[in-house]
């Protein structure tokens, strides 16, 4: 469990290679079992190293999203661009997205991919008129294009857009803003000092906006890190990116506290994301935080932040909040069981205003996370049976 990256010396290197080999074998085993062991694939996507190679990702990502590779959407029609009202904006954004393509790729090849990128985006938008394009969506789509190719990317992105990204694609960004409202409560749970500092700086949460709505694709320059995170997010609850955002802020707590306490300084510090983050450590931390402070626990506080700012909590807020009920309940229950077994006297969940981050037996928990997340993709937004809405006043 201690290996984070290929270490330099021979023995550890061997150890790493054999672990990797073992993981590859496990993944192929899960893929070939009948029915396919999706829960195992989720565990693999979350646990150290993620899905390891793009070849594996091409096979596993569709399973994580429950997309059939036999029934892909048809190629785009020739007049797709003329019909689209988003074409101009998409074109502008895709043209400027050079940095998303591998360094050294010949211009001609890149330009061909950019054309495909435009087509995928417009096709998904046309097939789903309820979805609205946002700047940054192209940063997500390009990742899928580069890993799985145009046809499969269209299918995966369509599923993702109607589920994980659905809230970002509303006519307005109100729900996106609401999701950002989870950030400060998570930080508060773990390190109230950092939370209070950021509140008095009035930094807001927009520094994390591009992280959230592009799944960090916009801000990370190493593509390997991006796909590693996508493994993780695809296997998890749609709110996991906001937990990951919180984990990054918390990882930089000393820098934050050393910063001048004003909006500009803190915004600038946080929006410049370090490129050498210890991704595996942060991923397991985000998983731990999700289990300890599940969205349903934070929903009320997040809604309150929203209410304070806009004085209007919409039905959607409650729907969103209650949509997180079920996986959390499962996860929290398991977490509480663990606590009861391991730390019967320490009440981690009820002690406010102290540093409450508890390091759990990291990836063991991904079993719970993975199992619950299996249901997420199937019904992330259709979750809330009407009666659950009554839970929220």
């Amino acid at each position, binding site marked *: 469990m201690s290996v984070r990256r290929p270490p330099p010396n021979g023995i550890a290197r061997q150890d790493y290679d054999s672990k990797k080999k073992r993981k590859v074998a496990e993944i192929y085993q899960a893929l070939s079992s009948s029915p396919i062991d999706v829960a195992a694939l989720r565990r693999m996507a979350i646990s150290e190293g993620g899905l390891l190679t793009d070849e594996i990702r091409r096979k596993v990502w569709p399973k994580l999203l429950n997309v059939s590779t036999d029934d892909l959407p048809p190629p785009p029609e020739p007049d797709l661009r003329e019909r689209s009202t988003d074409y101009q904006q998409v074109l502008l954004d895709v043209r400027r997205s050079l940095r998303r393509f591998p360094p050294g790729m010949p211009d001609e090849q890149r330009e061909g991919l950019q054309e495909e990128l435009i087509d995928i985006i417009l096709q998904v938008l046309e097939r789903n008129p309820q979805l609205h394009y946002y700047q940054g969506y192209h940063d997500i789509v390009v990742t899928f294009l580069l890993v799985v190719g145009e046809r499969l990317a269209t299918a995966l992105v369509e599923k993702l857009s109607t589920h994980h990204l659905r809230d970002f694609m509303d006519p307005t*960004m109100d729900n996106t803003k609401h999701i950002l409202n989870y950030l400060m409560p998570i930080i508060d749970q773990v390190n109230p000092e950092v939370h209070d500092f950021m509140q008095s700086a*009035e930094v*807001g949460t927009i520094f994390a906006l591009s992280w959230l709505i592009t799944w960090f694709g916009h801000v990370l320059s190493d593509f390997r890190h991006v796909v590693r995170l996508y493994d993780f997010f695809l296997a998890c609850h749609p709110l996991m990116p906001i937990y990951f955002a919180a984990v990054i802020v918390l990882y930089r707590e000393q820098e934050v506290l050393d*910063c001048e306490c004003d909006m500009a300084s803190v*915004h600038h*510090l946080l929006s*410049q994301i370090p490129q*050498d983050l210890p991704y595996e450590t942060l991923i397991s931390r985000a998983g731990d935080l999700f289990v300890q402070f599940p969205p349903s626990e934070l929903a009320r506080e997040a809604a309150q932040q929203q209410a304070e700012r806009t004085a209007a909590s919409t039905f959607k807020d409650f729907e969103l909040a209650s949509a997180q009920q079920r996986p959390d309940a499962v996860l929290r229950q398991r977490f509480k069981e663990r606590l009861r077994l391991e730390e019967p006297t320490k009440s981690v969940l009820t002690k406010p205003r102290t540093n409450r981050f508890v390091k759990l037996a990291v990836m063991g928990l991904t079993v719970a996370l993975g199992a619950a997340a299996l249901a997420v993709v199937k019904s992330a937004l259709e979750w809330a049976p009407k009666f659950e809405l009554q839970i929220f006043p």
Partner: protein
Amino acid sequence: MMAAAAVELESSLELSFSGGGGGGAGLGSLPPARSRIFKIIVIGDSNVGKTCLTYRFCAGRFPQRTEATIGVDFRERAVTIDGERIKIQLWDTAGQERFRKSMVQHYYRNVHAVVFVYDMTNVASFHNLPSWIEECKQHLLTNEIPRILVGNKCDLRNAIQVPTDLAQKFADTYSMPLFETSAKNPNDNDQVEAIFMTLAHKLKSHKPLMLSQPPDNSEIQLTHGPKPALPCWC
């Protein structure tokens, strides 16, 4: 190649922030502030060149490649005006409409000036200006805040869609000074520099009471300062 260029862009961006030396840590190294801060927000349609303009002013050159701005970016440069050290903060905003509706308003808080940007080669970006101006009005507490209008990309002579006299008429209607420039090829005496420095001079001489970090003097009053001398500074 591309990665190297990207890294170069980022690192020079770091350098453009005052203090320097912080490396990845960034602002840990801002000078201990007694210097005044002028906070300027830059708005306008997508792809009119807001990022390039702010980058040009803060880093002193045209960025090799920029991407769509998501949310709000921040750049800063320290300047000295009449012997006083002043920090000019430029808040570079996303152009897509959906961002400004619910995201950007937080950043209108305490701004000292607004820069509206349109693309001289894109008439739609010019026609959208009234909605930006209207939006800005709703967010700002006072009408006294200096606003300027910048037509960008004037180097693309053959593609100009917005003639100067039309833009000037528009600017007059809204009592704003108009500048036509190019973040890419500013004329011999660097015009982008001149635009922001002019703005800074105006702020320094006309708006001493609204700054977020006033210097130690006793002139703080609750009333607004005198009306600006120039009628165009609304």
